[in-house]
């Protein structure tokens, strides 16, 4: 498999506490990967390591054949709290990122590039507003425009929609999906929201509870690439996937260590809920390693 991002045996320890260790995962180019798990399992730490904002206690992360050493303009982060600079306008915030990427660009070129992405996220006309004048959804759109404007190799999103109301969240998920589909962006996203993961992701990584959290399974999303929010729940495998993830979050995320199955952290099983279960006894979990 194409290993665009390759997490190789990373660990994070604080003193005697091991948040996670021996974590292995690879993400293909252009893939949309969601990590789902409970609070405290270390999802955000994994994302921060990918971003270069945090460094692992052991192991390496390789992106595009290069080991990560600190933050890079190749990996854009969309923060949960949007992290816009309140003293800059919408244009100013996006232009700040653009001018950091292309330091020799003229003002005009920077403005044009920023404008392109402000238009892309549907904020045309709000360029002169400051973050305080924007709604939560609009702020997050600016965050997305800022991340995209530097044309990164990877977009890292840390629960980007969790602070938004349900309606705004839905609209923004549609936008993100549209933008990522058209630009072929590689995305690594952290979420709490099962439906969000199923709607957006190609593959959903299930993480057990910390401390000593593990990547339990990777769920291969059976939904077609062309999907619409309105009818994903009519897909024959939608509920199988959804139930599988919810089962995991409700019970198995706690009891995974006691399941007694051999777990090779280097080869996290890829599961396709519903596909083999149809032909097997009901208690056999659907798994294709």
């Amino acid at each position, binding site marked *: 498999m194409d290993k665009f991002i390759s997490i190789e045996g990373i660990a994070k320890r604080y003193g005697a506490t091991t948040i996670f260790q021996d974590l292995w995962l690879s993400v293909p180019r252009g893939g949309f990967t969601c990590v789902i798990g409970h609070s405290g399992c270390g999802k955000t730490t994994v994302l921060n390591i990918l971003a*270069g904002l945090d460094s692992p206690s052991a192991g390496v992360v390789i992106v595009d054949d290069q080991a990560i050493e*600190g933050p890079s303009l190749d990996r854009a982060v969309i923060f949960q709290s949007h*992290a816009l600079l309140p003293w800059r306008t919408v244009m100013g915030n996006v232009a700040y990122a653009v001018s950091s990427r292309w330091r020799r660009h003229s003002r005009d070129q920077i403005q044009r590039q920023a404008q392109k992405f402000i238009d892309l996220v549907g904020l045309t006309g709000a360029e002169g507003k400051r973050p305080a004048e924007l709604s939560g959804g609009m702020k997050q759109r600016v965050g997305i425009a800022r991340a995209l404007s530097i044309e990164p190799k990877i977009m890292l999103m840390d629960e980007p929609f969790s602070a938004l109301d349900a309606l705004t969240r839905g609209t923004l998920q549609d936008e993100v999906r549209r933008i990522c589909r058209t630009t072929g962006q590689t995305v690594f996203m952290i979420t709490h929201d099962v439906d969000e993961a199923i709607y957006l992701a190609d593959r959903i990584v299930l993480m057990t509870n910390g401390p000593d959290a593990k990547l339990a399974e990777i769920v291969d999303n059976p939904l077609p690439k062309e999907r619409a929010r309105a009818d994903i729940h009519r897909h024959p495998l939608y509920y199988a996937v959804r139930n599988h993830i919810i089962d995991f979050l409700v019970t198995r995320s706690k009891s995974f260590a006691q399941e007694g199955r051999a777990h090779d952290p280097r080869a996290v099983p890829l599961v396709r809920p519903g596909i083999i279960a149809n032909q097997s006894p009901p208690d056999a979990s659907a798994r294709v390693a």
Partner: protein
Amino acid sequence: MTSSSLTLRAALVSILLFAAFILAWHLGVRGTGAVQQMDPEYAKLMGLTATQGKSAMPGPLDVGAKLWEHVRRPFYDNGPNDKGVGIQLAFSIARVAAGYLLAVLVAIPIGFLIGMSPLFSKALDPFIQVLKPISPLAWMPLALYTIKDSSLSAIFVIFICSLWPMLINTAFGVAAVRKEWLNVARTLEVGTLRRAFTIILPAAAPTILTGMRISIGIAWLVIVAAEMLVGGTGIGYFVWNEWNNLSITNVITAILLIGVVGMLLDLILARLTRLVTFPE
């Protein structure tokens, strides 16, 4: 109740309080009439207090008249001991401005250093803790001895008293910049200098300006005392000179003007603070 009617009522109460104060003052210093007969030559020596029972304290009308006189002719200059109050205030403001700007130039870079470097924060802390509580006037003899110029010594005293609030607030503001904003700069690979000017400075600006506002208040408090010591010019010298002239009317007038100028200085800094404060 709307807020405009609250403002209106508050203004009304203020005016009433002011009127009551003026009235009490006026009644309190009113003369009681001739108290005793005395030889006219002797009466001339004794003054109105003894002969007419008039209080030595001027009334609001005297002060009002004097104030009007000063406001009408603020910039006359009849030699070293008789200058318009506008000239004296200008001297004081110039000294405050010089000492204060000097303090800005020193406090903000050092505050940045302390805020950005935990090493310097710890290393400089004992010095700041010891130097901060020293009354600025305690430096005066040392300043006079080393600088050998009274006017420059006053400026130095203003410098030293304005320094601490700005230094401490700058260090605090810089150290307290939201981690996410710094992370934004890190993910965008922004260099240290650019980060200091484009992220830390604007993020810390409201805290820095608050420190500057505290400093200007303290500087204006200290300049009066400093000028009483060094003499020559300035509103502090004016107050002391008028005390030596036993002109309580002038002293009260000067007190009022000191208050008004202090308020204006604070207002300017408050405006500036609002200019750099952006809600999230």
